[in-house]
Structures are given as structure tokens and as C-alpha cells.
């Protein structure tokens, strides 16, 4: 070890929701410039670049396309593609790059005009045929992406008695959080009854159990902690991170109700020397309501099978035992594809800085951010703190 410590020093997002007339790179530029301004840095300071692929256009080597767009001359760059886990992983990899001396100021940026680029039907078809399903062994049977998660929900209900009302509670709580986020896509309050009476898409998941589709981008800046102390905002440190994967495709997973989040969480907690009880706020990936329930269990916030009961009675809301996904997540806040899980990291930083406004959790010292890619396939857990221990 060379003793370099890195920290997150800037965050920024574009307008999120329906943002017609802005390309993927314009949205990424909006987010990146906001993150740099937040840090008190300029694009000319950046010498490391991390991004993800986009769906709305073809980019040969996305990191090269994005770095070239900004005029960055990187000492290090990488395209991160762990689907929904990409946001957490970009931060993990940027911190590793700075701490290993490969670069000094790393910009992580992702997002696109996923909603305005094409019709919702085109987006649904494209995701079903070129998304998470195996092209030979799953796609020919006609599953939607939500169907692949519905298989998990159905099995969870069978094994543990989880109820549709409990799935709906997740959507209701996270919508309440979105209502307190001025940049969230969907802010109108909903009830459990609204979720259960919304259109059944693929049983047991209703349309309000599913992530939305949005335009938007998110960015963060990572640099050396010694430099961070002179910048505008107080630094946020990575205390531990971990990865997990137990299957590539959901169809041949040995178990649908326990995921690689067990492994990513165990590693991240072990590295940080902390446990679930130390987490003040958990920004958990929420592509579907069932995802939150499975991940709460697998990360150790409640015993396996108890996730449905854990989310009841506002327990994952502000003022509850564990506030979860306080910006509104993918269910309500915004979901512009691979960048969607990056907003969870930004929210963890905001909570740690005490900048979350009406949705601020009191006295946050340790926050967890968790991303899930594929169909609860690849997982990345980050434990973040506002003190370097």
C-alpha cells in the first residue's frame, strides 16, 4: 500500500424524469458539470473516467466516447458494465484507481434519454429481447424483464408466505420518499390499494411493483483524501465494498430466493468492521418491489423470509427502523438504464453530508448503497461513511 486514501468529493445529477430534447451525452454533461461544481473542481482537473454503456445509441468503447466528448486526457479510464450494479461498482473502481495511483481525479458518470429516445413499447420489447434473459433458453418463451423478477416473487411467496400487500408497501414507502425529492420523476403519493389495483403485468407483479423508465444522468467525483480536505464539500469515504454472483441467468439459478447479495454484503461488512445494525440509511436497489425484500434479507437486515414483515408499517420509511432508498429509487425517483443504480450512491453521499433536505435521516454516519445487475445476479455493496473511521 502506498498510503493514498480516496474519497467522494462531488456529486451531481441532470434533470430526471421526462427530459425531451437532450441526448445521452448532454444529460451526462449536465450531471458531470454539476458534480465538478459541487466539488469545486474543473473538467481540466479530471484524469480518470468511468462510465457505463447506454442503450439508446451505439458507442464503441463508451469510456473513450465519453472521455473524448469532455476533452479529458485520461491517465486511466474504464467502461463498467455490471448492469444495475454498475453505479456502485464505478465508485468502487474509481476509489481503487485513485488509491493505486493510476489517476488523481476520477469522474464517474452514467445516464441517458431512455424515456424520450423511443416509445415505451419499443423500450419494453428491446429490454425483453436484449436484456436479462438468455437469448436461446429464455427469450423464446416470451418473458418480460419483470417476468424474470416475478419468478422470484412467486417463489418467495411460496416459501415464506410473503404477501402482495407487503410487496406493495415497498412501492408506497419509496414513492413517499420520491415525493420529498424535488428531482424525482414520480412524486404523487400512492397507497397499497393503488398498487394492488394497478394493472397486473406478470403475476404477482403489478405495474406499480416495477421500475419506471426515465431520462437522466448522475455523476460523482473521486479524488485523494488529502486533496479532498481543501475542496468545497466534506468528503465521503468508502469503508468497505464487496461483490457477489450466484448465477448468470435466472432460469438455471439453483435458488431464486437467496442471492449473491449475501456474499457482497458479508465482504463489505467484514472489510468495514461494521454490521447491519451500524447502518443509518440503506440505499438499496429497487428495480422491482421484490428486489428490496430479498436484498434486505440477504444483506442481513432481517432473517431470510422475514423481508415481507420487515417492510410493513413504515419500517423502511423515514422515521422507521431502517430508512431505505430515500431518494425514491428506480420505482419512483428515476431509472435511466444502467445509470439508475448510481443515484442510490449519490443519495448515500447526500445523506452522509446532511444535504438530503426534507428526506434527511437524522445523524447519519454510515450509509449502505447496494446495486444489483441482471436478475438478482451480480451484486455490489458499498459501505460509506462521513469519517475516515
Amino acid at each position, binding site marked *: 500500500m502506498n498510503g493514498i486514501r480516496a474519497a467522494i468529493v462531488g456529486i451531481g445529477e441532470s434533470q430526471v424524469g421526462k427530459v425531451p430534447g437532450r441526448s445521452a451525452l448532454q444529460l451526462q454533461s449536465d450531471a458531470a458539470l454539476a458534480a465538478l461544481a459541487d466539488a469545486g473542481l474543473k473538467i481540466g482537473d479530471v484524469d480518470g473516467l468511468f462510465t457505463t454503456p447506454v442503450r439508446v445509441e451505439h458507442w464503441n468503447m463508451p469510456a473513450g466516447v465519453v472521455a473524448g466528448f469532455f476533452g479529458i486526457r485520461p491517465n486511466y479510464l474504464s467502461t463498467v458494465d455490471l448492469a444495475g450494479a454498475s453505479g456502485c461498482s464505478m465508485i468502487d473502481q474509481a476509489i481503487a484507481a485513485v488509491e493505486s495511483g493510476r489517476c488523481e481525479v476520477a469522474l464517474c458518470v452514467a445516464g441517458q434519454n431512455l424515456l424520450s429516445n423511443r416509445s415505451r413499447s419499443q423500450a*419494453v*420489447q428491446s429490454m*425483453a*429481447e436484449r436484456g436479462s434473459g*438468455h*437469448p*436461446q*433458453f*429464455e*427469450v*423464446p*418463451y*416470451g*418473458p*418480460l424483464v419483470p*417476468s424474470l423478477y*416475478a*419468478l*422470484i416473487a*412467486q*417463489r418467495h411467496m*411460496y416459501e415464506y408466505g410473503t404477501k402482495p400487500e407487503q410487496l406493495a408497501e415497498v412501492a408506497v414507502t419509496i414513492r413517499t420518499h420520491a415525493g420529498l425529492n424535488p428531482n424525482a420523476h414520480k412524486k404523487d403519493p400512492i397507497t397499497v390499494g393503488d398498487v394492488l389495483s394497478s*394493472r*397486473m*403485468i*406478470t*403475476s*404477482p*407483479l403489478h405495474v406499480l411493483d416495477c421500475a419506471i423508465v426515465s431520462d437522466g444522468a448522475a455523476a460523482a467525483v473521486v479524488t485523494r483524501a488529502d486533496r479532498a480536505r481543501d475542496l468545497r464539500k466534506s468528503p465521503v469515504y468508502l469503508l468497505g465494498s464487496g461483490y457477489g454472483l450466484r448465477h448468470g*441467468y*435466472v*432460469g*438455471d*439459478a*439453483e435458488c*431464486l430466493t437467496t442471492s449473491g447479495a449475501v456474499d457482497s454484503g458479508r465482504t463489505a461488512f467484514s472489510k468495514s468492521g461494521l454490521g447491519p445494525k451500524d447502518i443509518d440509511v440503506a440505499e438499496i436497489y429497487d428495480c422491482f418491489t421484490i428486489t428490496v425484500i430479498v436484498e434486505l434479507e440477504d444483506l442481513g437486515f432481517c432473517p431470510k423470509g422475514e423481508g415481507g414483515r420487515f417492510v410493513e408499517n413504515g419500517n423502511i420509511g423515514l422515521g422507521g427502523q431502517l430508512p431505505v432508498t430515500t431518494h425514491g429509487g428506480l420505482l419512483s425517483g428515476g431509472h435511466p438504464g444502467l445509470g439508475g443504480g448510481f443515484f442510490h450512491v449519490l443519495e448515500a453521499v447526500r445523506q452522509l453530508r446532511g444535504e438530503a433536505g426534507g428526506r434527511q435521516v437524522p445523524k447519519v454516519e454510515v450509509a449502505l448503497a447496494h446495486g444489483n445487475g441482471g436478475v438478482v445476479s451480480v451484486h455490489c455493496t458499498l459501505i460509506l461513511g462521513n469519517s475516515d473511521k
Partner: protein
Amino acid sequence: MTSLPKPLPAPDPATSEYWAGAKQGELRLPKCRDCGKFHFYPRTLCPHCGSVNLEWKNCSGRGVVYSYTVVHRAPSPAFEADVPYVVAVIALEEGPHLMSSIINVPADRVRVGENVRVTFRSAGSGDEMLPMFELA
């Protein structure tokens, strides 16, 4: 006439034996000669032990419904005439799980844990056959 082709399986050298079996009405899976376990989807090495010493074996075609979903909103126009239809994960008697459809039964009759057996249906166009399941 407008034709709305469904997405077809495109066999590759690692999987062609599976699809050749389906055309003959057989569910054929790779089995490891070293650890003795079947696996699915077909790979060129055993995901349980890493061995490349594999052979293709015909399966019984029997299994149970491990999980299922009734799809009410088609992913593309090609599936609209089929709605509602059942996409399921079948736990085969030989061990592996695989995704398939359950047919020849009203969608609301399917439950986790029911016994099923394989049957084969045209993949929609071309001559590929898709393994599907019906209640046993």
C-alpha cells in the same frame, strides 16, 4: 400479410445437441462424467466442478414447477395472441432448473410444486422445437 416472428433460439456449437434432441422429442442435457451432475444451460465445461469431460444424456422429461408467472402484457406483438401465458422455472428430476412455458392448462390453474412433463412445440417459425411442459 404481416408476420410477427417470435424470437427463435439460435443453436451454437455448444448447444446444438440440445436443439437436435428437441427436434426428436427428447430433452437432452449435458452430464459430467467426473462429478456425475447434470447441468443447464448447456456449457462446454461443468459449472459444478470445472470438468470438460461431459456427455449428453436424455432426461426423463419429468419435473416440478419451481416457480411461475402469468404474463399479461406481451413483450412484443408476436406474443400478443398468447396472453395470458405461463412462463415457469421447472426443477427437473435430474437436478437442473430450466425456464419454459406450461401449456394445455388454464393459466390460473398452475401452482408451485405441481408435477409436470415435457412436450415439444414449434418455436413459431423455422423448424426448431421448443421444450414446454404440461401438468403430469
